[in-house]
């Protein structure tokens, strides 16, 4: 059996799985060959290329069994919270209660990609008046209406205010369909006036104290709702313990990012890194298992780095990627074109920072929520991107627009201008719809050209 790091197809994974199993592979309960998920309708898996490590097998199986986990949680009598738009605050609160499971219904935006449009979720959204002028997260509406994916949550919680306009419209439509939502407001983060008390936020930002107080009061409403749902108190002690656990996830992710993005040879492909990073915002419906999955990934990555082995050549262009992609295949495409990911900003960089543990927990969560890149200006976002580009040594920035997403209309230009002026690295914007098969050649040309540009610049 070849154990050198590499990328393999689903078919190759299933052969490898049999070899590993015969050699004594030990897996968690959700383990198994990846090919079985195609039977569930996840046809896109046949077109992806995967990291060949056991750690990545576990990561993929963890991701692809989330719906089963949620249904099991319901069967066990746990209460299910759908936490929407907010990327990383309410899940921390929900998982502080031992009988509550939170998940991220917005994650349904990947279903049209993974099922190659066969689930009809976007068509359902169309029929509800939410057409393709909205972000693909509208697939969530279809998932609620058909009930064919995740169980309908006992409680929906959604942040509103300084959030995407299109998402707010989609969530309101959901509310109108008879799925009541607890809304909590997140204001647009602004810099304190001269005479205002200021508060430092994670990520190096700053906000007026009154904004932090306001968000804290909003989160207290959420806390009360969660207590009612769980039938138990969510006191500061439980909340602090929940924050500590969330920070454990965040520290592991920070370590994984640091080791992977700064390694001379890429130790983990872009696709697996994307999925691993996504665990930060909602723990894939199992916080403790998230920690185990990440630990195993980090061990694998460290082993590869120490051995000087990786999954790509050592002359790949180091790309900083902004925004998640609707079609997972594009992460493979970047590598086909000669690039690797060295730095990311998938709209939730605040969920990668540790939550201050020395503060009262509600205050700490409020500060963290206000550090969300989506609630501040695009310039703030760009500054953080610049800092990470320096940290990870990225050679170019790729901004991936999400079709219909309101925040994408102007942010790319702003981020591009700031990055160019501060660091003089090339910036490219692309648009990635849920299924990119027909535009693969044109997308490939753009990515190849960016990589050629990076390599030309190295010759100076």
């Amino acid at each position, binding site marked *: 059996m070849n154990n050198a790091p590499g990328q393999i197809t689903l078919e190759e994974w299933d052969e490898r799985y049999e070899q590993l199993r015969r050699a004594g592979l030990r897996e968690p309960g959700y383990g198994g060959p990846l090919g079985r998920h195609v039977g569930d309708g996840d046809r896109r898996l046949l077109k992806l290329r995967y990291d060949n490590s056991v750690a990545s097998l576990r990561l993929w199986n963890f991701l692809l069994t989330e719906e089963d986990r949620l249904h099991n949680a319901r069967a066990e009598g746990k209460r299910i919270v759908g936490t929407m738009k907010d990327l990383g605050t309410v899940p921390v609160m929900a998982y502080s209660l031992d009988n509550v499971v939170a998940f991220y219904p917005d994650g349904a935006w990947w279903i049209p990609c993974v099922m190659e449009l066969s689930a009809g979720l976007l068509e359902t959204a169309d029929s509800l008046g939410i057409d393709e002028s909205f972000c693909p997260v509208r697939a969530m509406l279809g998932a609620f209406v058909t009930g064919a994916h995740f169980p309908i949550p006992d409680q929906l919680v959604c942040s509103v205010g300084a959030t995407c306009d299109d998402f707010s419209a989609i969530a309101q439509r959901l509310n109108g369909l008879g799925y009541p939502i607890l809304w909590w407001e997140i204001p647009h983060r602004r810099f304190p006036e001269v005479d205002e008390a200021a508060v430092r936020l994670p990520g190096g930002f700053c906000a007026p104290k009154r904004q932090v107080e306001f968000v804290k009061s909003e989160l207290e409403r959420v806390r009360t709702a969660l207590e009612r749902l769980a039938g138990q108190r969510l006191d500061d002690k439980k909340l602090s313990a929940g924050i500590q656990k969330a920070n454990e996830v965040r520290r592991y992710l920070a370590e994984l990012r640091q080791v992977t993005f700064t390694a001379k040879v890429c130790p983990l492909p872009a696709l697996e890194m994307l999925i691993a990073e996504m665990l930060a915002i909602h723990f894939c419906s199992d916080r403790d298992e998230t920690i185990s999955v990440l630990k195993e990934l980090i061990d694998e990555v460290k082993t590869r780095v120490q051995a000087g082995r990786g999954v790509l050549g050592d002359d790949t262009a180091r790309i900083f990627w902004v925004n998640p992609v609707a079609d997972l295949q594009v992460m493979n495409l970047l590598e086909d074109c000669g690039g690797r990911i060295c730095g990311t900003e998938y709209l939730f960089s605040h969920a990668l920072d540790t939550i201050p543990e020395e503060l009262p927990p509600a205050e700490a969560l409020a500060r963290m929520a206000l550090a969300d890149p989506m609630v501040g200006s695009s310039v703030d976002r760009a500054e953080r991107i610049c800092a990470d580009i320096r940290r990870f040594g990225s050679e170019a920035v790729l901004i991936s627009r999400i079709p219909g997403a309101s925040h994408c209309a102007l942010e790319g230009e702003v981020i591009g201008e700031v990055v*160019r002026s501060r660091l003089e690295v090339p910036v490219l914007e692309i648009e990635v719809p849920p299924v990119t098969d027909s535009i693969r050649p044109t997308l490939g040309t753009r990515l190849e*050209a960016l990589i*050629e*540009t990076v390599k030309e610049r190295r*010759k100076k």
Partner: protein
Amino acid sequence: MICAGIDAGSRTIKIVLIDADSRAVIAKGVIDQGVEQNKLALELFEGLLKGNDINRGDVARIVATGYGRNIVSIADTTITEITCQAVGVRHLVPDAMTVIDIGGQDSKLLRLDRDGKVRDFAMNDRCAAGTGRFLEVVAERLEVGLESLGDMAAKSKKPAAISSMCVVFAETEIIGLLAAGKAREDIVAGVQAAIATRVITMAGRNIDRPIILTGGVAMISGMDTVLQSALEQSVAVSPDPQLTGALGAAIRASDQLNGAKP
């Protein structure tokens, strides 16, 4: 020895043969693109060799570029049109700092550094509204040849306002304008202005001069003027604008052959 650059574009295939050492152009040719793209490229290539008494063995290296670059079977390697356009234009216009390339299917804006390398680039990715396809649609609708569009636009006294950002809907607008009795010259001028507007959205706030226009659309008279007007900066048309991509590919082939650090 000879090096070849083949630009397999969406509307035409272009080939330039150069002397690998002096980089002087030995032969060049253009053929309309079609369904059998590789066959067409081979036909053009063979025709150029035959027409210029060149043996196939004298061509030491071939680089293909353009959207169809990966199906050119005789190519030794491929390079994107972004890099090749930059190389080709800079060869012809050594102080070029910005290249606007408007082709049949897409448009691009390239920013170059002092050494002529691509510093940054942008491409249209949503619609054909900023491309030569827009002009083809209007030419078909107005029942005139592509080559006469420039002269027609020059006669316009009041260019029509074409508001659409989509070629398909723009065609509907053109039908409406014709029905309203708008002069064909004004419609063509309006379309040229719409293309220019679309292209300059890629430019952002800062654009370095000299600005060079290239690509098939650059051959239509008046496009440089409308771009100039939209950018409020002078825009020059590259020599041999349709061939700059193929020329750049040929130069890159010679760099590779000579082991030079381009």
